[in-house]
């Protein structure tokens, strides 16, 4: 039987400030290699919180989370984030003062990989940026790019360390309809081509219909 890339069991999260709100109530989820999963829900239902917990950016109050068979409670999650997970955020979250290429190479530099112009990582960064159609923008500062271009950089950056899991938090939320379609297709296309497990948190019902599995987060539970 195939080992799940991500296995969450009875995840709980309660925010105490300003008043106790139980955002997640025993959420369980197993994700397998190459799966595309969409999570829908209304604003404030805790979709982003769930995605941050699944991406080890936040700790659950209770429950267990295994990524690639590793218990996240007993490991250095920064290594997991660097090697196993790629994030695509709604607000792009690029390092604005750096160039497109530097942004894409940053996770590799954090992993202490050589990023010199003769290295394999550098070649992969060029390849990924070509894949997302930004081969002409390599040395542009990230801050001067359009929203759509920024999200393409974010996708390339998420893929640079060849992670097994891609987590996208409303990736087209800040884009117009046309760009939104392009980015969604690009993300799904990249994930499928490279055999990545993709989790997308979205409001978009159309997008969720493209997923292998679609969940709805409602009242702290995944339906």
């Amino acid at each position: 039987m195939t080992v799940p890339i991500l296995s969450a069991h009875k995840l709980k999260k309660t925010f105490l400030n300003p008043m106790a709100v139980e955002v997640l109530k025993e959420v369980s989820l197993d994700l397998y290699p190459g799966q595309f999963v969409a999570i829908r829900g209304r604003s404030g239902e805790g979709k982003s919180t769930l995605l941050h917990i699944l991406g080890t950016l936040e700790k659950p109050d209770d429950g267990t989370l295994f990524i690639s068979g590793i218990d996240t409670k007993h490991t250095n999650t920064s290594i997991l984030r660097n090697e196993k997970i790629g994030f695509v955020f709604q607000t792009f979250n690029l390092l604005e003062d750096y160039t497109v290429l530097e942004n894409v190479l940053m996770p590799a530099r954090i992993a202490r990989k050589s990023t010199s112009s003769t290295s394999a990582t550098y070649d992969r960064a060029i390849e990924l940026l070509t894949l997302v159609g930004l081969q002409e923008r390599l040395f542009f500062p990230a801050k001067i790019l359009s929203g759509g271009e920024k999200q393409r950089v974010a996708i390339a950056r998420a893929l640079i360390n060849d992670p097994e899991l891609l987590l996208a938090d409303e990736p087209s939320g800040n884009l117009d309809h046309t760009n939104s379609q392009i980015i969604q297709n690009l993300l799904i296309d990249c994930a499928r081509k490279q055999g990545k497990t993709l989790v997308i948190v979205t409001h978009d019902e159309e997008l969720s219909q493209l997923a292998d599995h679609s969940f709805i987060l409602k009242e702290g539970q995944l339906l």
Partner: protein
Amino acid sequence: MFEFSIAKKYLLPKRGQLPVSLIALMSVIVISLVVWLMLLFLSITDGIERGWLNKLTALNGPIRITPTPEYFNSYYYQIDTFSSASNYSPKSIGQKASAPSSNPYAPDIDMELPRSFPQPKQDPQGYFIDPVKRAFQVLDDLQLTYQDYEIGGAMMRLQMLRSPSGNLRDLDQHFLTQVTYVTSFSDHNPKLSDLLLPATPQDVEHLLLMSAFEQVDSIDAPDGIERSTSAASSARIEHLLRHMEITQLKSEPFWEIPKHLLPSNFRCPAQIVLQGKRVAQIILASETHGSQGTLVSENNSLFYTDAHGSKYPLEPSSSIISEQSIVFDATVNSKQIPNRAADLRFSLKGQWRGLTLKGESKLEGLKISRATSKQTSSTCLEDPKGVWLPKQFQDGGVLVGDTGFLLFSAQGASSVQEQRLPITVLGFYDPGIMAIGNKCILAPSELVHSLNLANQSFQMDPSFASGIQVWIDDLSKAIQVKSSIENAFQKQGVDTYWKVTTYHDYDFAKDLLQQFQSDKTLFTLIGIIILGVACCNIISLLVLLVNDKKREIGILQAMGANTRSIACIFAFCGAGMGIISSLIGTGAALLTLQHIDAIAHFLSFLQGHDMFNAMFYGKTLPNSLSTDALCFVLIATPLLSLLAGLVPALKACRLRPSAVLRAES
């Protein structure tokens, strides 16, 4: 390292980050200022300390080896008083070193030794232990520069013959009497040439004057002045010219220019003094006056033309006077040495208002304005009566060539008698700082030893009165060298005879050195406190930077940067600022030190008097950067800045990426 490149990016000023850039700039300026100030102060203090140390150890070697009471109580020392080979008198350390035998006692010739007389000391191999020869052997083996010394005391009485007019018939006589210490002249001292002061032109003139006199036994009365014979005077002048080179002479104002010095064809403005119709004097005035005419030389004839064109030929008796002094380059004609200094002939070449005056002339009417000494430390020892006085005597009017006596009481056959040892002042030296410095005269060791042997009036502590001085190039190694000497002495079995001390232990140096150390420690402490305060600026800056870069920190964490990497980024920022500030401060300090004299002059000008007292700081302030201070600053500043960077670094580590990214979205 990505942490380093991010830290570099944060430190570079950017548009839109004016507050951060301003605080960064302020922090760098403040730390640079502190670094500059510390380097400057510590370098100058270090330089002054080195200067004082050099002064302290110039006359007294940095290491001194003195005999212990055991040496004086030993058979080795006392046996000389029972030995005919030693002339029944104790020997100095130097004499012991050059004595043919370590044990001069001959039982068959010399008187029997008393029962209580100390026993000779032998080593395990049965050899007689010679403390001096073994000590000298140790110092030779260690390849050290050393010399034995002896100090005595006597009353010095100098006769100072002066002729204000330079005429031998017009002679004044003064006396100077002072109690002095007499130290043997250390010609091995490598710093001796720096200590000896060059003879002044006044000294040379005085020596020429003194060439006409003999030193006589009775100097208390005017009739004690005795003229030398012509041959003796001539010999003295010749001797002087062998040791001194007179290179420049200067005429007095209103000097009569010998006509043969004038060029053959010239015209120059002049004034005339007539005696009837005869030209008595032509005055070459220093300034052009409306009423003056011209002195003309044409076809070997000299004449004066006045403003109306009237000609006045000069007669052989007419004199040409220069209103102003004229400086001549001079070379002495040493082939013919006269028996009178004033008759010494010089080849002269000088300029007067565009006229070249050239030719040979007598010294009479001219003053020596520049003379250089050919003397070396070995020639200093040529004269067995020659002594060197501290420079304070020079300030008191003593000149090279003055003669006198060292007076002391000696036990005669039936009574204590006054004895005199004749001396001649050979020159002056800078005694540096030494408690007895301005009373200590340097004399040949034989003179000091004879003084000590007979002297009844001046009893000194024997351990102070003699010893061995050791000179080393690097003063900081004094303690190390001392230990090597002590160990070697122990191996040779002579350690009980000698006490080895370094300049740190000298009574006259101890307080000063300790004070320097205290000053440096105090300022270093103050510097560290100011530096700490300045580094607090870095804390505020980096806290601001952490707040400004929260989102980037969150992004980096999402990409897998761990807390250590995040902390490193801000610690690097702190250390980077420290390094930049240190380099700026060091550069500024180097620049200031290069122009320290100009700055000191400017400060003195602002203050209206000397900013830095030459007595304490020296003629010029030290201008070399202290390596110790540089090392201290280059280590302490980045380290303190790094520590300052750690506080915001910890704050950055505590940021929760989820919260940051959520808040920023």
